[in-house]
């Protein structure tokens, strides 16, 4: 009996290639989307779980409210790790990271540097903490001595083999010599250490041994004993403030108590963040690697679910519509003694078969588009072909999908009465029209919702890109790691400045795009009290900085080579001005100091006030900032005149190779660098766009099939209308408007929903657009236009048919 079912199913599929194609293709596209999204979500959820005892490892985070600035830091003070381990039995192990960003590495005897993007100092407990094995070297002694380091396999292979790397020397940033004491495997791409390749012994980091509770610069991880959990460490963590932080601070602010500290609106709170939650739940300042968010995981999961539901809806719609053709078969089978259950079985087997064929196509499609998807999502996901569980899940999900989407058509068709279906042949009316219409409404509601979301995301991105940022990011070329030129940096800037295409250039590691950051507490002269502190960013720039980036001074002047005293001058931004509580002119000449110990005080005189510029992402407000004149040669920012950039870049490169032989030359444009701050949004926008297109495509496949069915069903009606004198346009209009009503209803449902949801999303931005009516109108228009295009083909085709032909089919 099952053989018979399969046989007739197969023949039916072959006989109706058009419907089969619509069905299989629609399902396959939905499945492909779902497969890719599932892999992505699985990858997101798997972060950092590969580390030994990952469920017992926590990071210590610090929330600081001080000097008018609030900071949620992913770091803790240097002595925190030791204090926790010494004082509390629940803490089994600790490790600290002090990241150093990118570094240049070369063998001592050569000149050729290679760049490692993420490097860090780390305690020697690193291996035990995360269960990391060494490919070579001794885990007991590696990283115990100053000036030793451990490399990942890939980094090691750039200079030596894995085996003979041990004991070799490397020069870091052309200055410090380090000995390689170990090589580890590359770190998993789904871990917080994924970008790190160089681990230097913390023993060589002076600040790591200082009893400084004021600076929070160390990523501190603790591992609890098996019997303890995060709650057990809450009270110990809270006690650190009274026990260590306040006594330390009282050295500088005699008489300060916990009460007066709090009364001034200040606070410091320590938290634990589970290691395995960092990737999805932590969004603190200066995370060790770029994190994702659970929100995105939810959004994507929903989109994946939408796609699958859309595809199922298509399937149900097409199958029931198509059942007209199968009605006779159902009737015959019933008269021959088939009961309902057997018919239901038969149709379910058929939909199962279609689902399986779609699965094959979906797997093929997934393999094809995976590279594109990886580019889109910024991951390195692969299909786990060798994992039987993957196939099992896929297979079971497909069967469930087949049964689910086949259930409605199966029950619907098995109810057809033979008395009705056998007599008339093809002009039996098929019910279920209301449900089919509801399904179309649902599909378009989802599609329009996704269109609205996509438009809003892109509008917000456009707004960000075109917003007056307080500086000009266009036509600014950034030459990276210019410090590698050593003594030649000055010559490099001078020679570049002589190029015809170069308007001006400036050296600084601090730029209003992702780059170096530092900050400190400052005090107005004569007001060194803890409640008067100003937490201010400290940027080191040269005198060309403000003109090169076209920033505006609203009072005072820029740094000047002629003024020798400018080494103790500061240019503040408007946010600092607000903290000082004076008007721009009054601020000029004020003196501020960073040192808390009065005898050591070094004062900086305010010589100018720069208009606020956005130096962090637009999600955040502009904080207090001070520009200081100092040598900071990390990046050369070059303002170019309009023209042939390629030519200019190659001229700059040849100057670089001449002055800094063997040092890597790398550059980026400032507007591109700026855009990387919005990677998450751009990615979200692109992902939205792709899946929106997919969902509209699936909805259209369904609509197309339904329109074909409708035209076919009404062949006779159309013929009669034409005989009675209806014009082609009248008939086309008649056939099309039926569908447009459903699309319209879908739009009405989805617009308020889209508006509400996207307003929630926009709340994350300090600077955001308002959703204007035209975005909603455009989304509605797009949906209607696509629907008209889809339906009108079938409608016009039906309308122009000669009525003699259509009436003959009676």
């Amino acid at each position, binding site marked *: 009996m099952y053989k018979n079912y399969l046989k007739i199913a197969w023949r039916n599929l072959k006989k109706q290639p058009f419907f089969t194609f619509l069905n299989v293709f629609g399902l396959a596209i939905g499945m492909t989307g779902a497969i890719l999204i599932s892999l992505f979500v699985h990858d997101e959820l798997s972060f950092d779980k590969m580390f030994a005892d990952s469920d017992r490892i926590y990071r210590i985070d610090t929330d600081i409210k001080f000097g008018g600035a609030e900071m949620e830091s992913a770091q803790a003070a240097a002595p925190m790790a030791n204090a926790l381990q010494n004082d509390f039995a629940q803490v089994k192990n600790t490790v600290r990271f002090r990241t150093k960003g990118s570094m240049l590495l070369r063998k001592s005897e050569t000149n050729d540097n290679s760049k490692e993007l993420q490097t860090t100092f780390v305690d020697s407990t690193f291996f035990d903490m995360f269960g990391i094995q060494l490919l070579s070297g001794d885990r007991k002694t590696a990283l115990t001595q100053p000036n030793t380091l451990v490399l990942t396999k890939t980094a090691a292979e750039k200079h030596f083999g894995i085996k003979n790397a041990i004991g070799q020397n490397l020069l870091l940033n052309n200055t410090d010599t380090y000995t390689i004491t170990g090589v580890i495997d590359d770190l998993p791409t789904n871990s917080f250490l994924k970008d790190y390749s160089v681990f230097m012994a913390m023993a060589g980091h002076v600040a790591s041994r200082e009893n400084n509770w004021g600076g929070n610069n160390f990523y501190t991880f603790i591992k609890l004993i098996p019997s303890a959990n995060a709650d057990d460490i809450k009270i110990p963590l809270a006690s650190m403030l009274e026990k260590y932080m306040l006594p330390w601070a009282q050295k500088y602010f005699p008489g300060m108590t916990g009460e007066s500290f709090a009364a001034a609106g200040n606070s410091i709170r320590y938290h634990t963040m589970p290691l395995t939650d960092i990737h999805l739940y932590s969004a603190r300042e200066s995370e060790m690697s770029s994190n994702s968010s659970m929100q995105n995981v939810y959004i994507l999961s929903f989109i994946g679910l939408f796609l699958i539901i859309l595809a199922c809806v298509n399937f149900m719609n097409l199958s029931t519509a198509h059942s007209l053709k199968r009605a006779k078969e159902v009737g015959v089978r019933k008269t021959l*003694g088939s009961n309902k259950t057997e018919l239901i079985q038969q149709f379910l087997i058929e939909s199962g078969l279609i689902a399986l064929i779609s699965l094959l196509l979906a797997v093929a499609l997934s393999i094809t588009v995976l590279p594109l998807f990886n580019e889109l999502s910024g991951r390195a996901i692969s299909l786990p072909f060798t994992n039987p569980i993957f196939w099992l899940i896929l297979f079971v999900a497909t069967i469930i999908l087949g049964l689910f989407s086949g259930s409605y058509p199966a029950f619907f068709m098995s109810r057809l009465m033979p008395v009705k279906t056998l007599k008339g042949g093809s002009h039996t009316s098929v019910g279920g029209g209301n449900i089919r219409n509801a399904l179309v409404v649902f599909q378009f509601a989802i599609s329009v919702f996704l269109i609205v979301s996509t438009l809003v995301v892109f509008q917000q991105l456009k707004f960000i890109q075109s917003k007056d940022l307080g500086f000009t990011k266009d036509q600014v070329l950034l030459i990276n790691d210019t410090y590698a030129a050593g003594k030649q940096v000055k010559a490099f800037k001078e020679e570049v400045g002589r190029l015809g295409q170069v308007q001006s250039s400036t050296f600084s590691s601090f730029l209003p795009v992702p780059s170096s950051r530092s900050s400190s507490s400052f005090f107005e002269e004569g007001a060194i009290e803890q409640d008067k502190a100003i937490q201010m960013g400290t940027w080191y720039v040269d005198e060309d900085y403000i003109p090169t980036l076209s920033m505006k001074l609203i009072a005072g002047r820029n740094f000047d080579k002629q003024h020798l005293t400018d080494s103790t001058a500061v240019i503040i931004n408007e946010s600092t001005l607000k903290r000082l509580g004076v008007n721009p002119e009054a601020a000029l000449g004020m003196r501020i100091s960073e040192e808390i110990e009065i005898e050591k005080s070094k004062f900086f005189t305010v010589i100018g006030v720069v208009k606020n510029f956005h130096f962090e992402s637009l999600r955040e407000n502009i904080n207090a900032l001070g520009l200081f004149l100092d040598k900071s040669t990390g990046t050369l920012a070059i303002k170019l005149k309009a023209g042939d950039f390629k030519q200019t870049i190659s001229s700059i490169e040849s100057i670089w190779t001449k002055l800094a032989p063997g040092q890597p030359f790398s550059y980026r444009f400032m507007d591109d660098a700026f855009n990387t701050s919005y990677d998450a949004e751009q990615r979200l926008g692109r992902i939205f766009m792709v899946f929106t297109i997919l969902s509209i495509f699936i909805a259209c496949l369904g609509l197309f099939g339904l329109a074909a069915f409708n035209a076919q069903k009404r062949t006779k009606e159309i013929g009669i209308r034409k005989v009675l004198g209806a014009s082609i346009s009248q008939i086309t209009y008649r056939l099309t408007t039926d569908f447009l009503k459903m699309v319209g209803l879908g739009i009405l449902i989805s617009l308020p929903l889209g508006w509400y949801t996207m307003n929630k999303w926009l709340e994350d931005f300090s600077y955001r657009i308002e959703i204007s009516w035209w975005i909603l109108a455009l989304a509605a228009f797009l949906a209607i236009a696509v629907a008209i295009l889809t339906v009108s083909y079938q409608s016009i085709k039906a309308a122009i048919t000669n009525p003699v032909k259509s009436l003959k089919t009676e």
Partner: protein
Amino acid sequence: MIKIQNLKKSFRTEEVETLALNDVNLNVASGEFVAIMGPSGCGKSTLLNIIGMLDNPTEGSYKFSDHEVGGLKERQRTELRKGNLGFVFQSFNLIDELTVYENVELPLIYLKMNKSERKQKVMAVLERMKIAHREKHFPQQLSGGQQQRVAISRAVVTNPKLILADEPTGNLDSKNGIEVMNLLTELNQEGTTIVMVTHSDRDSHYAHRIVNLFDGQIVTESQNRAMEARV
């Protein structure tokens, strides 16, 4: 075999109730060949559908081999129908996606007969209907007469007690029509009861008895003189 008493069937639309069968009484004995005649819309097909257990009467009693059919659930009707009844339609109603062999095999599959037994029965009936050489063809590849022979093969393959034929020659030319009628007669002579709805005077003459239906009521019943003469 068939005992119908005071049978009524009405169809209800939103506003109108149509009485398709009004107080029909009919008995068909085992081995009989009965033709039901009457103008379009008189209720012939409705009566045949009820006899064929494809439809339920609104009122009255219908006993098939002493089983009361009226009021049975669909599942129960299906069970009773299986193997007992064979259908022949005007428009053949073969399944286009199945071959001749597979079409005829279908009722046996629903009887859960095993494969070798099925094969033997199907081939035997196809041989008998002189259509065995076409067993691998699809219905669309056959002439109307051949299609109806396949349909009859399918109706009789289970050895049913009763064959219901709804205008079996309606879509055939006279030569094929006569051939089909001869086949039905042959089956009847072997003991199968046949109830046939027809418009055709020629066909009705093959029956033992003609029942004339008009506006849902049996108006006349007549023994077929030609048959009497033959018997």
